[in-house]
């Protein structure tokens, strides 16, 4: 009988499961070494950003490791925001290079913000490799409380 021994079939599937999980693990390791993990590539040519809407203002957070405030430029017009930067290559003199991964030194990224911001009152600061920008909304785009009569 072909499927006489269910235990054998069960065992076969068990083995497949095991193989599957082993392969997953191998592929994960592989992706990690090459930096292919789609969620966590740091090899992007532009810094990753987060944008939060805090009612009265927007807050943009960007990852800019190795950039000091002199290395960054921010331009704003209406709801258009442009952040650019150039990182000095920090290879010390007289050293030979064994490994270079932090290659990106120049970037430009532009955004369309959800609403107009008051460019005169924008504050930006760099700390610990994060660029934080506080972008106050213009009067017209601020949230308004409507009283029900």
């Amino acid at each position: 009988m072909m499927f006489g021994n269910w235990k054998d079939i069960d065992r076969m599937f068990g083995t497949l499961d095991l193989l599957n999980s082993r392969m997953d693990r191998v592929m994960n390791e592989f992706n990690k070494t090459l930096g292919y993990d789609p969620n966590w590539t740091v090899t992007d040519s532009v810094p990753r950003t987060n944008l939060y809407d805090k009612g009265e203002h927007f807050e943009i957070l960007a990852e800019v490791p190795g950039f000091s405030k002199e290395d960054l430029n921010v331009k704003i017009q209406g709801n258009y925001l442009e952040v650019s930067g150039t990182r000095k290559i920090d290879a010390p003199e007289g050293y030979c290079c064994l490994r270079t991964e932090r290659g990106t030194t120049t970037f430009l990224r532009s955004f369309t913000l959800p609403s107009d911001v008051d460019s005169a009152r924008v504050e930006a600061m760099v700390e610990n490799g994060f660029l934080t920008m506080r972008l106050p909304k213009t009067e017209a785009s601020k949230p308004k409380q409507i009283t029900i009569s």
Partner: protein
Amino acid sequence: MGERTDLVKRDKTHPETTRRIPKVRPLVDIYECDNEILLHADMPGVKKEDIAIDIDNGKLHLSGVRGIKAEGAANWVEFGDVEYVRSFSVPQTIDLEKINAELKDGVLRLHLPKSEAAKPRQIEIKAA
């Protein structure tokens, strides 16, 4: 049945965790000169006190946790809390006592000085 349990055994030994932070490998540059090996690692947003550098048995283990204070409604989020983790093999010639590190603008700079015995030496040839 004994064989079967052996085949389908899985790793379920991890203790229960309430919240898992993704682990990321930071990008590094490594430089070497006659006196030391220098390692630069990009770790944006990590504070000095959240970095741990352990050296044990020729392995250098680098770990830095960053947390983001996020308030308000997120319009888009491209990054979040992560743990930067990476391990390296350290050659025997490194003087473990003198290792030092600095953190500036989200870049960790780790100096691994070579021990005196490992530095290149010029041998003078004596005239016979």
